[in-house]
């Protein structure tokens, strides 16, 4: 085990311990970006699960021609058939506050990374194009 080897160094000489600690600290620092990346990588989405989590979405995105009234009036985007990666990114940006819309911020804040992936899988799977008018 690494720890027992370090322990051996420890009994040998203090300078060696310092070097070992420094090396360990450097290794941890170097590994951090990779770790951070692994954490932000989106989990795999489950479309069926997403279909059961979308009660908060349907009130606006499920209604043809629905308009958001605050802070500006425009039709809420159609999201059926949209790329899953883009949907996840949009939700993450609303959650972080990078993209601002009061309702979307509130909703996205309540979502986990898994919820986002599941919703993205559900919506990206498309919709009957007859409902697009």
């Amino acid at each position, binding site marked *: 085990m690494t720890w027992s080897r370090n322990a051996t160094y420890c009994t040998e000489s203090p300078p060696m311990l310092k070097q070992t600690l420094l090396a360990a600290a450097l290794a941890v620092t170097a590994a951090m970006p990779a770790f951070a990346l692994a954490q932000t990588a989106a989990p795999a989405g489950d479309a069926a699960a997403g279909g059961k989590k979308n009660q908060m979405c349907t009130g606006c*995105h499920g209604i043809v021609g629905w308009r958001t009234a605050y802070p500006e009036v425009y039709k809420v985007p*159609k*999201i059926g*058939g949209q790329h899953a990666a883009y949907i996840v990114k949009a939700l993450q940006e609303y959650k972080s506050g990078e993209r601002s819309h009061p309702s979307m911020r509130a909703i996205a804040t309540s979502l986990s990374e898994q919820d986002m992936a599941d919703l993205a899988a559900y919506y990206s799977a498309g919709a009957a*194009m007859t409902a697009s008018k």
Partner: protein
Amino acid sequence: MTTSMKTFACALLTMFAATAALAADVPAGAAKAKEVCQACHGLYGNSPTPDYPKIGGQYPDYLAKALRDYKSGARKNAIMAGFAGTLSKQDIENLAAYYSSQPPVVATKH
């Protein structure tokens, strides 16, 4: 025609001209799309790249709002800020009208 009638007609024409300035020109939007948007979003808005949204058949007012927000910086994206920054208000209306009139690749889903 009396002078007052002429003045009135003139005022009406000016009003129409002012509103017409922001009426969307779809062919002009198509030309701009070919120049600026096509490489990422596709000429018909069916973006082949997962990171870039599909915009064909999207609502025109949503598309215009997105472009205005990218241009103003209200919505932050390094790539879109560069492109939207070059667009005039008229370009934005034209592009929104052009992409929204393409065969829908996004739809309302319940």
